[in-house]
């Protein structure tokens, strides 16, 4: 297999030493089938062990290795050398504070996932402990796509609204709320729609669809947000006219 020399330009930042982030160049002999993550591992193992980044599964499912590659948010295990020019710039995800090198601070988005109340909420009892809820394939299909989110947060990095203000609850958390709202086993929609009523809910989204474009798992958070707006409006009317009894 052939190798190709890639010039990596990697953002470095050590808060204990550096006043501002800076770029370091590494020249990496890449195998043709490598992803950017493999190039970073090469740097760590052979050129500079002080470089910090997150990774684990190397199979697009753990969501750790999101970074900005040549200006766009990507999973680096899924961004292949074969699709890139000889010079590649790697930076941390945008819209997040940098913790160290390519590692960003995720506290805010972790908090937001929690706000979505991402668990089954019931008014009625669930079935007995040895009985399943029946769920048709069609019913599963309704929300399945929104279960695919790996929490990589690329969508937040791409979102212009989140870039303006962290008050916006944002694409992945809204998709997650929507996922449970659509699940035939759940009865907690009214509670979750409360997060929309807040000023930082769904109404802040300006619908440029950058989140869905960035998403490596085809979750399509923009569609979730759109649908939730409709749901939110309906719920608002229902509550206004007392058509639902479950307002907490």
């Amino acid at each position, binding site marked *: *297999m052939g190798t190709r020399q890639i010039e990596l330009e990697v953002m470095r930042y*050590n*808060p*204990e*030493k550096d006043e501002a982030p800076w770029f370091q160049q590494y020249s990496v002999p890449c195998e043709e*089938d490598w992803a950017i993550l493999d190039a970073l591992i090469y740097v*760590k*193992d*052979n050129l*500079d*062990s*002080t*470089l*910090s*980044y*997150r*990774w*684990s*599964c*190397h*199979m*697009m*499912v*753990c*969501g*750790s290795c999101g970074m900005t590659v040549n200006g766009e948010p990507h999973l680096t295990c899924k961004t*292949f050398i074969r699709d890139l020019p000889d010079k590649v710039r790697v930076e941390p995800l945008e819209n997040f504070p940098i*913790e*160290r*090198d390519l*590692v960003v*601070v*995720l506290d805010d988005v*972790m908090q937001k*996932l929690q706000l979505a*109340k*991402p*668990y*089954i909420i019931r008014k009625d009892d669930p*079935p007995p*402990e*040895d*009985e*399943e*809820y*029946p*769920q*048709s*394939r069609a*019913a*599963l299909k309704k*929300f*399945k796509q929104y*279960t695919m989110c*790996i*929490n990589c947060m690329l969508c937040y990095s791409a979102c212009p609204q989140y870039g303006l203000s962290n008050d916006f609850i944002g694409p992945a958390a809204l998709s*997650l709320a929507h996922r*449970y709202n659509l*699940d035939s*086993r759940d009865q907690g929609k009214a509670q979750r729609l409360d997060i929309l009523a807040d000023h930082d809910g769904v109404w802040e989204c300006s619908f440029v669809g950058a989140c869905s474009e960035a998403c490596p798992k085809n979750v399509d958070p923009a569609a979730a947000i759109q649908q939730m707006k409709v749901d939110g409006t309906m719920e608002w009317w229902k509550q206004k006219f007392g058509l639902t009894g479950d307002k907490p």
Partner: protein
Amino acid sequence: MKHIQADIVIVGAGGAGLRAAIAIAEIDPEIEIALISKVYPMRSHTCAAEGGAAGVKLSDDSLEMHFNDTVSGGDWLCDQDVVEYFVEQAPRELVQLEHWGCPWSREDDGSVAVRPFGGMKKKRTWFAADKSGFHILHTLFQTSLQFPSIKRYDEFFALDLLHEDGRARGVVAMEMRSGCFFHFSAASVIMATGGAGKIFPFTTNGAIKTGDGMAMAYRAGVPMKDMEFVQYHPTGLPGTGILLTEGCRGEGGVLVNKDGYRYLQDYDMGPETPLGEPVFKSMELGPRDRLSQAFWHEQKKGNTVPTAWGDCVLMDMRHLGAQRILERLPMVHELAVSYVGVDMITDPVPVRPVVHYMMGGIASNIEGETPMPGLFAIGETACGSLNGANRLGSNSLTELLVFGKRAAAGAAAFAAENDYPREAPALLAQAEAIVARVRGLLQKSEGNESVAGIRGEMMNSLEEGAGIYRDEEGTEIACKKIAELQARSAAIKVNDKSNVFNTDLQGLLELQNMLDAAECVAEASNARKESRGAHQRMDYVERDDENYLKHSMAYRQPGERPRIDWLDVTITRSQPGVRDYSGDKK
């Protein structure tokens, strides 16, 4: 050092740790839980599991059959009381996940669907397309968010166990973002740190699977059980080691050598089954150990296919058709396209055996208890002897749930019965010593060894000496090599002196842990002079029930080779017999 007081500390927030945390929160919301994880919970490697989780579901199946498959699959090294409890609890736990929102795949009538899996006589593997572990992990993580008593410490790296008078008392951990040290004290500790596949060069395991919990327990004097049993998965992608789930073969994929011949029929797994009609427990649905061993022989005979990444065989799925592949196996389809450039709809995919799962681990029993009072171990880091000498695919995801819940009850009871002084000077001193050790590593300014260098040598020596086939000489060389690397690792200098997210330091700590796990694997492989399940000795080719129907127990002896003791296997109703993988045709 900061001090955190909890009733129960759980180290690890993968499937096992999360299931335990939820169970404790449900038992009593007053119990304070500290859930420590070196990565955010949803990054845990449970997310990578593709195929599914086993539990009896259909009316033509029975607990008895699941028991028999598991015990014979494990080559009679399973503790049968554990297996009995497991098969009985399995369906309930899988339904529990269903109630929590797990998006299991469904049948036409709206019931949860099950698929066939290697070594299983009936369809009993619950699945969520080919992302079963991912959905299980996210369902558990999301469900856990509703319990305020679960206090998470994400991206905290646990360093070592604290213990006093032979009892577990807590752990010391390092917060990655600050480099600050935390002293967690608790009445009971649950280890749920996952496996150690990264000690081998080709593996389906993620970067985080470095055997940390095993090493922490081992250093604290707790024995490691059955560490010689390392499962190779027969169908990993060459190069990256990425897994192509057994579900591929469950759906009807076949393995062929360079001549297009389905070679498994030459290794006691025939007769050949019709294309696209897999037969339970035969040919491609034989157990993993047998399939991986067959590859080894084909390679020796020169029947493998040379590729840019080394010798492979081919997995042919073309006869399944695009629709079935894309509906049932969308992720593996994408993985093969991305990482080896092969579209399985039109071409066979090159595959090879890769290290997948550690049957061995921290010695534990049916309650998840270890020999150290107050210390519990669950999930892949534990060896509760469900899996014996060879784990059946799809039993381990269920194991996380069944024994996560059971150990939670035990840990909660232990915490309730055993009060303990909140301030213990002896423990403080122990914690200080652990911190001093780590600070010493960080401050060291001289040294001519590197983490990557020693790690590479460790991986190669295990693959050589303790791989699919082993013998006296090879295992002996591996044991010596690991001891040498342990000594040399003292000369590693950490270049990164920062306190903030220092992955150079973390890499060294993980390497030390891996070397401890590697020591146990090499030594136990050397000690077991028989062939059983995943442990195949070329110099002792037969199973030897007279001498080795026993668990190996490796005890650390600082500065010396570990002591290996033997513990009887618990047999309730199935006497050792022959493992038959001819699909009942013989």
